[in-house]
């Protein structure tokens, strides 16, 4: 093969970033060392350095301790543990990899989160002798919170349990059960011996009973998180380029969607509008800029724009607010204290911010919510922040690039935490959900649900009016009842007529409507019930908030889908006709938007499925998630 062909192939390879994580000493670094060594990506001089060090620090007698290939710091070699994340690079004929080998020790969780924040996939190691540990769960939860959906569970040190198939299956089952509550799309379990390379590159002769792929082929086949060029256009302004009196360019990296010259844009948070005059790059002007590209834009009007502002399309606005709820991972020895002031760096905007209250802390072992007054090192919680100035952002689930922030201590300058936006907080909402003194029940939620042979859950049906939410939800509830499960259906009839009688259909009232339903659903789930709710619930942020209210894995978003035309032609209550005639205002789909879920747990297309088929699909899903036992 000529060198030019080779370069061309190399240039076109796609990239997968993955991490190794899991509890301390489970063999993460050894596994990466083995992967690099067996795939011949280690230079001779590096190997001889490792051999030299192995005699001094190694854990494997005179044999090379491959963990030392990645444990690059003096203290790591001396202590035999990983302290900070190591980045390694390697490629196979089909793919390039960036590996982040992260530390298992709890003290260094922040370094694990550092490595995980940019990863597409995670390899979670478990020591076959020890099974799942608190750190296994903590890391899994962080990985899932950061939006990683592809997970490989490598059950390591199989040599020390006699390559026992039953033991492997037991751990795989335990993990699966725990992960039911997380948001992973795919979980691949695999038995390995990092030390000797079993199932790393090649299938292991010691474990002929295992018929899955070895680690490397698995890594070659996982999907990578692609930049989202189809999403809504987001362009956080990084730097204003004033080259000359005639040139004023806005430099930044496209954080979502794409833009063409001539298209109208709006500046957030000011709301001023202009249009893209040119897209300037060193290699000439361009007609279009797409997600992930670093470009410079000029606009047709002279308007005031500075670093920290965001360009968007006028019809695809992000949230703008002075307060937000976010999931926070705390990374400092000093606890997070409500009332104290920090700086928050959200995209390119840095503002002073104060945590107003901690809604709840999430127990990483059980994923249960606990009520706390402060947050200490390595804890994870839902926290309300008040910003000193309004900022534009999205929910992290919607767009990680515009929904992530870091928290900086104003005195020490240290990075003390990381946050993922759940939703903006509007004024009316802020007053209503503050400072509730929580009463701890004596009977735990799991006990209540256990008595009913089910796991509590909120099945949240969302979709256009006429899409079939109520019909499917009613049919499902009947099916549940017949099978002896305990459930309750919340819908417009029993909510709008009582609890929410005072609410109309303005955006503000809709938000409040969903907030109340969410709280009621939570209480019912707390009582151990499977709650079904069937509301249009058009706004993504509101559904995100209900999701966050619930413990992990309890919220099941079900998108009941049918096109607007179909819904309009069905028009069971004659509402579309009235909305078209102008008799009803703010009708979803007509003069009020419907924001479809981005990652619903279940999608039901009622144009092609019958109600019975929808119910069957849901029952299967609930069983696979072990909500129904």
């Amino acid at each position, binding site marked *: 093969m000529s*060198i*030019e062909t080779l*370069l061309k192939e*190399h*240039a*076109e*390879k*796609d*990239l997968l970033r993955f991490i190794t994580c899991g509890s301390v000493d489970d063999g993460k670094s050894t596994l990466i060392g083995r992967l690099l060594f067996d795939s011949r990506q280690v*230079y001779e*001089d*590096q190997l001889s*350095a490792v051999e*030299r*060090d192995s005699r001094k620090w190694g854990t494997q007698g005179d044999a090379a301790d491959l963990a030392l290939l*990645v*444990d*690059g*710091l*003096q203290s790591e070699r001396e202590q035999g543990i990983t*302290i*900070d994340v*190591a*980045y*390694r*690079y390697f490629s196979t004929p089909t793919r*390039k990899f*960036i590996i982040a080998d992260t530390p298992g020790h709890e003290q260094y969780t*922040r*370094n694990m*989160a550092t490595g995980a*924040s*940019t990863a597409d996939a995670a390899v979670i190691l478990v020591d076959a002798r020890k099974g799942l540990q608190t750190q296994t769960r903590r890391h899994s939860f962080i990985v899932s919170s950061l939006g990683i959906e592809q997970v490989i569970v490598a059950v390591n040190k199989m040599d020390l349990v006699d390559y026992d198939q039953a033991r492997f299956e037991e751990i795989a089952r335990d993990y699966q059960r725990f992960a039911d509550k997380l948001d992973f799309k795919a979980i691949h379990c695999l038995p390995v011996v990092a030390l000797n390379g079993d199932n790393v590159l090649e299938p292991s002769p010691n474990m002929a009973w295992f018929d899955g792929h070895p680690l490397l082929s698995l890594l070659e086949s996982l999907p990578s998180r692609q930049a989202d060029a189809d999403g809504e256009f987001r362009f956080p302004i*990084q*730097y204003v*380029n004033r*080259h000359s009196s005639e*040139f004023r*360019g806005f*430099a*930044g*990296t496209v954080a979502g969607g794409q833009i063409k010259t001539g298209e109208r844009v709006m500046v957030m948070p000011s709301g001023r509008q202009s249009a893209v005059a040119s897209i*300037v*790059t*060193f290699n000439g002007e361009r007609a279009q800029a797409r997600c*992930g590209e*670093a470009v*410079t834009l000029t606009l047709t009007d002279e308007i005031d724009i500075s*670093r920290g502002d965001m360009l968007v399309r006028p019809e695809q606005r992000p949230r703008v607010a002075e307060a937000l709820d976010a999931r926070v991972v705390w990374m400092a020895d000093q606890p997070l204290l409500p009332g104290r002031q920090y700086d928050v*760096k959200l*995209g*390119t905007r840095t503002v002073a911010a104060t945590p107003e209250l901690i809604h709840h802390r999430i127990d990483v072992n059980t994923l249960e919510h606990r009520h706390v007054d402060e947050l200490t090192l390595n804890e994870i919680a839902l926290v309300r922040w008040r910003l000193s100035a309004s900022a534009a952002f999205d929910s992290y689930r919607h767009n*990680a*690039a515009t929904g*992530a*922030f*870091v928290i*900086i201590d104003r005195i020490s*300058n240290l990075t003390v935490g*990381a946050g993922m936006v759940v939703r903006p907080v509007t004024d009316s909402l802020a007053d209503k959900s503050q400072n509730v003194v929580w009463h701890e029940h004596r009977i735990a939620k799991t006990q209540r649900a256990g008595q009913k042979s089910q796991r509590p859950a909120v099945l949240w049906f969302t979709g256009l009016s006429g899409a079939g939410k109520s019909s499917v939800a009613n049919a499902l509830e009947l099916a549940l009842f017949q099978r002896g499960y305990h459930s309750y259906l919340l819908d417009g009839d029993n909510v709008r007529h009582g609890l929410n009688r005072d609410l109309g259909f303005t955006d503000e009232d809709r938000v409040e409507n969903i907030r109340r339903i969410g709280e009621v659903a939570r209480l019912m789930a707390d009582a151990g019930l499977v709650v079904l709710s069937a509301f249009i619930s058009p706004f993504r942020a509101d559904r995100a908030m209900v999701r966050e209210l619930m413990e992990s894995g309890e919220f099941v978003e079900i998108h009941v889908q049918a096109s607007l035309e179909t819904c309009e032609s069905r028009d069971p209550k004659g509402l579309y006709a009235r909305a078209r005639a102008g008799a009803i205002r703010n009708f979803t789909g007509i003069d009020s938007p419907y924001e479809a879920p981005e990652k619903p747990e279940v999608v039901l297309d009622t144009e092609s499925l019958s109600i019975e088929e929808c119910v069957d699909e849901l029952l299967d899903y609930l069983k696979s998630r072990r909500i129904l036992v």
Partner: protein
Amino acid sequence: MSHLDMLEAEAIHIMREVAAEFTRPVMLYSVGKDSSVMLHLARKAFYPAPPPFPLLHVDTTWKFQAMYEFRDRVAAEAGMELLVHINQEGVEQGVGPFSHGSRVHTDIMKTQGLKQALNKYGFDAAFGGARRDEERSRAKERVFSFRDRNHAWDPKNQRPELWNLYNGRVHKGESIRVFPLSNWTELDIWQYIYQEDIPMVPLYFAAERPVIERDGMLLMVDDNERMPFAPGERPQPRMVRFRTLGCWPLTGAVESTATTLLEVIEETIQVKNSERQGRAIDQDAGASMEEKKRQGYF
């Protein structure tokens, strides 16, 4: 986007963050291939303006002649100010690689020289072209790498660095070393040079050069006047090139016939030893790079 496009966008993003958040940034320029790529990326990041910071070359006075010529030309082309700093105390004490050995020479002329220059101009951020794939302690370093008042790196206490949200906060006297090429591999660098047609110092390409062999290392005699020949030692013309550039008495050449960029890349792909092996300084002690970095080396 291809992975090279992603690396490019990432580097540009990092550079713009620095330009926006720091008062007095500088770009370390060492004339080598990584510096050349970094400079090229800086020109792209701020186009049509020239990069809004100066270049700094810490001159040990023992660089290859070809490097000095190349340096001056490239800075002028980029329209950037070029600051050259030489540790005068070192010069007065006659410090050099032959008289004092690689360790002392590098420490005084390079590490101390760098610290002097950073203090003198009060730079709060300095770009370096180091890559994580070069060496195992570099593999551990952040993109924004915090240095205290003594320019020291504390590898056990690095700031968390999530997503592309870099924390550039420093108190007076502290600074950040910034590594926009962190995630590039050596092959990525070559590929990018090829793709973008970035000019390179001729030393990277094989040519017949006057060479002597010492301690298993091939040394090119760049300056006859300053070369302390051993009795009977005489430079031989050999076809060699350099995989990395530094002070000529400390940088080993490799035998090669690669005279074009494609041939150089081809050799690189086949190579079995990592590129830093050519540098005397790294082999002095097991953890020498980490040790140097703790003391302020780039």
